């Protein structure tokens, strides 16, 4: 299932934006589309410092205000307002056919539009599986840490109930969810044998080495054909049996390849957000450690490394670590 792969859930949802006008501003009236764009534009993004941490204290003390950074499962999240489908010009026409049978190229063609303006919400988060319960838990967790911001956004969406904000947020996303057909996971692990699948192995879940005795239905049809041959039937009946067998084998292969393709890859080691942040934290600290220890005697180096381990606790992803949504170019 492409919504879930490699230990990550790839959520895609389209939620219609309310029609009519937003009266909240009282003095001036805006459309909900205008208002939701303004709310989104005013959300703080990640802290990126193009000049590098000029002042170490400033860098460490920088307040992370991007609301999604409060959720330690979300890797990447994006919200976009889709006003309409992009007009892509007139339908392609065969010039000779048009000349003979029309339509008259002078006449305009109808131009299609979306019935609503949509809010697109995509998010890539750590998950154990691709179940509905997992998604619901994630959405409730998101509401718990950034309910104010989500409320301010989704109040401009069709079907949002201010009396039951959390429940209606979850419902809106779940109703508006569409299948993610091409997920992007930055942490795919190509360890030994991880990317390999065999047609003869059992499908679903982590690939096991045990061969499952799946008898393709094609073999049965082939047996049928041979039986017919032996029993004296010849000519077109034989041909029919073989064709049926071939068609069945192709169909079986097609289903088999699809089911293998849908089976998610296993979670890459330490690809959850906390571990990734810890890795970034350790990388920065370890470089400074390396630089500082150049030319040290083995004994001094060993002692210093023990201090390094004690201070930075490489195996503890929770702390000390790098703040999410903060990075230096």
């Amino acid at each position, binding site marked *: 299932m492409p919504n879930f792969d490699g230990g990550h859930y790839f959520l895609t949802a389209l939620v219609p934006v309310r029609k009519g006008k937003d009266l909240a501003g009282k003095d001036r009236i805006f459309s909900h589309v205008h208002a939701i764009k303004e709310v989104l534009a005013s959300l703080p993004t990640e802290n990126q410092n*193009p000049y590098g941490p*000029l002042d170490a204290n400033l860098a460490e003390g920088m307040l992370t205000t991007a609301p999604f950074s409060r959720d330690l499962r979300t890797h990447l999240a994006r919200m976009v307002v889709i006003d309409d489908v992009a007009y892509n010009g007139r339908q392609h026409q065969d010039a000779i056919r048009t000349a003979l049978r029309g339509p008259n190229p002078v006449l305009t063609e109808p131009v299609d539009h979306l019935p609503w303006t949509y809010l697109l919400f995509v998010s890539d988060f750590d998950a154990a599986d691709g179940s509905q319960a997992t998604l619901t838990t994630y959405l409730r967790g998101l509401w718990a840490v950034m309910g104010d911001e989500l409320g301010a956004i989704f109040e401009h969406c069709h079907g949002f109930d201010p009396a039951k904000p959390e429940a209606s947020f979850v419902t809106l996303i779940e109703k508006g969810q569409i299948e993610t057909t091409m997920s992007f996971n930055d942490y795919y692990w190509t360890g030994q044998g991880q990317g390999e699948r065999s047609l003869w192995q059992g499908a679903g879940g982590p690939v096991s080495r045990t061969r499952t005795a799946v008898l393709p239905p094609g073999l049965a049809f082939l047996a049928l054909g041979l039986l017919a041959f032996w029993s004296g039937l010849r000519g077109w009946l034989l041909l029919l049996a073989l064709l049926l067998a071939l068609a069945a084998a192709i169909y079986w292969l097609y289903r088999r390849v699809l089911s293998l393709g849908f089976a998610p890859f296993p979670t890459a080691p330490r690809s959850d957000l906390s571990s990734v942040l810890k890795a970034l934290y350790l990388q920065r600290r370890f*470089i400074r450690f390396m630089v500082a220890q*150049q*030319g040290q005697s083995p004994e001094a180096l060993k002692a210093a490394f023990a201090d390094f381990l004690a201070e930075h606790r490489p195996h503890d992803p929770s702390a000390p670590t790098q703040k999410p949504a903060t990075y230096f170019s």
Partner: protein
Amino acid sequence: MPLKLDLSDIQGNILIRYGLAFPKGRCVLLHVNRNQVAKARAFLEELRIEKITTAALWKSSKTENLPEDIIKAYRPDVAINVAFTFMGLVAMGVPVRTLRGFPDEFQQGMLDRAEILRDDPYGLGRPESRWDEIWLNERNDPKAEIHILVTLYASKEPVHFDSPEAALEDAFQWLSKRCTENEAISILAGHGGANPLYQEIGALQEQDPDAPQGHLRYSGTEHFGFADGFGDPVFEGQYLDEDMPKQVVGQGKLKADQTWVPLATGEFLLGYPDEAQEVPDAPVPLDFSRNGTFMAYRKLHQNVKAFSDYISSTATRYGASYDLDQEAAEETLRAKMAGRWSDGVPLMVAPTYGEWQAFRGRLAKAKIENNEAELNRLIQKLFDFTYAADTDGSKCPFASHIRRANPRDMLDPTVTANATGERLAKATSVLNNRRRLLRRGLPYGGTTPIDSDEVDQGVLLMFLCANLFRQFEFIQQQWMQYGLDFNAGNDTCPIIGNHGPEAKFVIATSADSGKPPFICDRPPQFVETRGGAYFFIPSMTALRLIAQGLTDPT
């Protein structure tokens, strides 16, 4: 037919640098009064007809035997050239349809590209700007808007004057007089240095080894002590056919058979096909852009004391790690940062201090013996090298200055290696051919470096290319101020890059040396931009169109 450039239509200093033959210069910035365009045009007409130095070959014993269809001009005492900012072209009344053909970055100007270039015009993290005020004044005063750059380069041996200085002063006085008489043109003040009306530039000087004590000669070094000016791209049409085979080696583009051929002319002059076999974006009409090019003018301040202090303190630790005495350690450290030894010998030719000394020995011997063949062979080595034999950077660090500025064959994406790291094909310079820059310029400050960070000294560089965005800005942003393309993370150039509080520079060692790599810890800021702008250098034809107000874009 091979390309033959109309040399007398191209301004001088584009194709080849004036070099040490014109070792003293002044850069003057002018403002045009838009209400007096007719008078401003008259000034430009005079400049065009009487003053501008073109790329036409000069009459000399070397050129007198060339065919008659090659124009031979008189060698000037002062080479004069002119370039325009975007606002300068607006002020000169160039039509909007021509103006809109200029690329975004040129229209925007260097000051507004500061974030991309990682420049610091407004003194980020400092109490005030350290740029020369001439580059910032236009933000507060429309009459200080920079429009025209006039460069004056004086010949080492002027015919009509006693010294380059006298020739230069005469040329400047002429310009000054014109700007006083002509109310449409004024000289802008606010350059750092002795005289606010111009930026003085000049080659450094050193004791002439073949002359008595106290007799100085011009040297090609800059204030940090490196011999500068190696490695300038070579493109089709740039040299006479007979000179090309020698010039192109190590300077053109590298083919898979490891031969060098000239780069496409369109990388450096507008109106010609470039390396993508397209004619780059340029203003209409073609006459306006052809044989013109763009220039990024950069005043780069050098913190001479910070550099020498850092080298000497770091060399102590570096020398201890690799058993080098202080002198050898300092020279090696400087070479590892630059990619060349201080006299210009590439690390790829002489990777260690001992090999460098041996190379110098061979060079000195060939000079004493007057062995021209050997001398030519050795000098060619300064240019003719690739990085194929150094895939781990243990000879020339990936992040060193010249390897970043011109990675030659190292970034070829089509070259793959087998499991043992052996390359399966010869690399080409394919990913580098569209990122080359012609570098023109001279040091400024005293004639010898002063051990200080506060003295106004550094190098005035003019980067010439057909596309500032793709060539100059890309190299500056991605290769000088970032390191990802060289597997160096966010490490910037050890010499000219911005050095934040976590800056470092990695000097790799080969795996079989048994020695750990050395990491230079937190180098301070060595080079700082103190001003600059983007200019368009028009051809003589375009200059005529501007000066006569006859640009017709329709």
